[in-house]
Structure formats: structure tokens, C-alpha cells
């Protein structure tokens, strides 16, 4: 008997029990049509699109940071990266609300250039970027650390800058890890609630006018329409997000 395996799998099972119970009740005794109605699918579509856009922003903006931290260990910078995930996420929502408030200089500036974060797709995406970027960086940094640095040293030995080395030597054969990190960031975005409940409870822009992000919709159903609606909507979101989580593994393993 492999006791390590028994203990590990037992606790994994315990971890999954709430989800399994939810699936059972959502697909069975508590199944409520509103939980898989058009409003839910519009909401899930909004969450998928905004999470995908946020993950794309993570890739474009934060891949260099993951590489930089891997090759230039700096505890202060690494601690700064951790801040958005180590504070309660409603704080992120309140902070972005203040940043975009017309009564603050930052908000006045954003509005003057046509950027509105409150109840907008841009606000939703930015909140998701803030909460998912640290996850993305932390998932990608170990990959860069584990890479054989010889090709990079060779390129820099020929006179290439670290930035050029990053783009021409490192990135081209890092696509699998980058995609895996992006999917992980997207999963994180899909599950976000605290910040977006404050900043983008609804989106008031086409093509998602009047649509809640999925996690917010579940909370709204829980608050106003009862357990059945909340459980069924939760199951709908789980059915959509679990394949995403599995895709992370498949991409990573190749």
C-alpha cells in the first residue's frame, strides 16, 4: 500500500467534495432553468471574453517581467508583484474606483482621454489584469529559471542586449509555457469576484449592455433568486471552466 498516495488522493477528494456536491444538486434536485438561461450564457460569455482579453494583456505586458525576475532575482520586486494577490480583492476594486473617479486627478485624466473604468468592459478587463498578472508572472518565472541560460549567454556574448535576447532567443521556444500561463491567468480571471463586484457589477457597454460577469451573477442569483438558481448557475460555470483548467495541464505537458 502506497500510503503517501492514499493520503494525497484522500485530501484531494476532500478538496473536491464541495464541488461534487454542488454538481450533484445543480444537475439534480436543485436544477433551476434560470441557471442555464440566456442571461447566464451572456454572463458567461462576458466573463470568458474579458478573462481572455486580460490574459492576453498579461502575456503582452508581463512576460518580460517574469523573465526579468527569473534572470535578476530581486526580492523587493518579487514582493511588489505579490501585492495584488496578497490583499483582499475588494481593495483592488475600491482602488480602481478611486483611480477612475472624476473627482481625482487620475480619473479626470482618464475621462479626458475617453477611458471610463466604472461599469465598463475596460474596467472589468483592467481589474482582471491586476488580479491575474501576478499569477501569470509566478507561473512563468519558474519556467524561465529552469531554462538553460547558455543560448542567452551566447547571444549576449555576440553583443545582443538582454531585451533582444529575450525576444529572439527566449520567446520563440517558450510558447507552450506562455500559453499555459495565459490559460492559468484566464482561469483566475474567470473566478474573480471581489474587485469586479465593485468596479463592474454590470457592464453598461455594447455588446454586453446590462450583463453581469458570471461570478457576480451567481452572487446576485444567490441573493435575490434563491439557492436553486445560484447552484444551477454555479454548475454551468463549473462545466465551462473545468475544461479550461484541464487545458492548462495538457498544454504544459505537451
Amino acid at each position, binding site marked *: 500500500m502506497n500510503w503517501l498516495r492514499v493520503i494525497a488522493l484522500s485530501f484531494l477528494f476532500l478538496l473536491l467534495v464541495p464541488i461534487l456536491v454542488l454538481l450533484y444538486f445543480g444537475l439534480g434536485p436543485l436544477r433551476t432553468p434560470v441557471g442555464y438561461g440566456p442571461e447566464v450564457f451572456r454572463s458567461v460569455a462576458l466573463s470568458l471574453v474579458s478573462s481572455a482579453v486580460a490574459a492576453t494583456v498579461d502575456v503582452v505586458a508581463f512576460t518580460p517581467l517574469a523573465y526579468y525576475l527569473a534572470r535578476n532575482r530581486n526580492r523587493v520586486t518579487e514582493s511588489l508583484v505579490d501585492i495584488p494577490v496578497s490583499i483582499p480583492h475588494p481593495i483592488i476594486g*475600491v482602488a480602481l*474606483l*478611486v483611480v*477612475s*473617479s*472624476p*473627482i481625482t486627478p487620475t*480619473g479626470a485624466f482618464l475621462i479626458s482621454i475617453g477611458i471610463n473604468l*466604472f*461599469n465598463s468592459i475596460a474596467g472589468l478587463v483592467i481589474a482582471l489584469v491586476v488580479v491575474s498578472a501576478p499569477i501569470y508572472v509566478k507561473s512563468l518565472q519558474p519556467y524561465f529559471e529552469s531554462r538553460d541560460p547558455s543560448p542567452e549567454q551566447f547571444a549576449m556574448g555576440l553583443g545582443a542586449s538582454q531585451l533582444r535576447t529575450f525576444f529572439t532567443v527566449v520567446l520563440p521556444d517558450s510558447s507552450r509555457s506562455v500559453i499555459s500561463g495565459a490559460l492559468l491567468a484566464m482561469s483566475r480571471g474567470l473566478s474573480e469576484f471581489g474587485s469586479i463586484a*465593485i468596479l463592474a*457589477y*454590470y457592464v*453598461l457597454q455594447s455588446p454586453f*449592455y*446590462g450583463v453581469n460577469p458570471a461570478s457576480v451573477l451567481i452572487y*446576485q442569483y444567490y*441573493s*435575490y433568486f434563491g439557492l436553486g438558481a445560484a447552484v444551477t448557475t454555479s454548475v454551468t460555470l463549473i462545466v465551462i471552466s473545468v475544461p479550461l483548467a484541464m487545458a492548462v495541464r495538457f498544454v504544459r505537458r505537451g
Partner: protein
Amino acid sequence: MSGFEGAAKSNAASDWSSAFASLASGMVKVGISDPNADPAGLRGWLVLEAAGSLYEGNQSAYAAPLLHEKANVTGSAAANMVAPLQAGQFQFLFTYRSAAIAQHLGYLQLDHRVNLGDQKLASSYALLTYRLASGLTKGAPIILCMTVPTNAPHASEAMQFVQYLAKSSGPVVSAYGLQPFTPPLLYNNTAPPPFVSQMLADGVVAQGGSLGP
């Protein structure tokens, strides 16, 4: 805002008309909570309809342009929209006067034919309609009620609280802009519990009628 303040001061229909037209013009953002989730949001839309009906002879006179201009900002509950209002994300919020007082917000006193606050105007409020997800809803005076649930875990303390409010709530609720019935009214469809019957017998509360839509 100044248009509304002027209208509130003069109470002239033309001033109110002009103020509501500005409100619905898209020049300002107006917070109205989700009417399906929050009664305050439903009342917000009904108030706009009442104002349209009273000042323009058309219930949609203000609600329609507000929607057309996408000038309405929504949220799950009016209470959750106070912080973004204070942050300047929108300029007006439809909520109860009691909530505005409790939150120390500046507020405008609307005409009683518009504000759904006059029980004597129940029949004219009933001409207003709004379609919720659950169906068509008619306007009605806003009346706050309280009850003790059958299985309340602290029923005895809850009943004492009801007695306290029934006997001495006037100044407490008036401080928040509410207009208490004097005496308080009992609305019921079943026999009231003994302590309420006693208050009825003592004249502390009066019979209000039956519960129901």
C-alpha cells in the same frame, strides 16, 4: 442639480419639467438600482414615470430619453451605489429619503404626486406600470412594514422591538425622514399574535387592512 433645487424651491411645474428633462438628457449619469433586484430601483423608474405623466402628460417622457441616452447607471441595490455616487461615477441616485439621510447625502424633495410617498394618492400611483422579469407591476405608495417571522430565533426580543417601535417610534423614524402612521397600522391576513391583539385593544395600533397586492 441647480435646476432641481430651483424647482424644489418654486415647486412650479415648468421648473420641474425643465429639471427632469435635463436629468434625462444624457448630460448627467443617473443611478437607478436593478428594479428586479431592488424595490428602490423599481420605485426610481416609477417616479420617473410619475414625473413624466404629471409634467409632460406622458409616462415615458423622461424614462425613454434616459434609456435612449444610456444615461442610467445601475447596480444590485441602491445602498451599494452610494460609494460610486460619492466617487462621482454618476451624479444622481434614486433612493429613499431615509437612506439619503442615514448616508448623509444631499437630497431633493420631490412633489408628493411624484414621490410615491402619499398614501392618499394610491389610485393615481396605481396608473403607473413597470414590467419586471416577474411580470407587470403597478405603482403603489411606499409603506415600510415590519413583522416577526414564525420561526424567528429570538421571537421574544423581536416582539419587544415591535412593541417599542409601535409605542415610541415617532421621533426615531421621523429623524430619518419617514412619516409614521399615528397610530401605527396593522395589516394582517391571519389572527395577530396575542401581544399585537393587546396593542389593538389598547388603541396603540389600529387596523390597517389585509395584506396583499
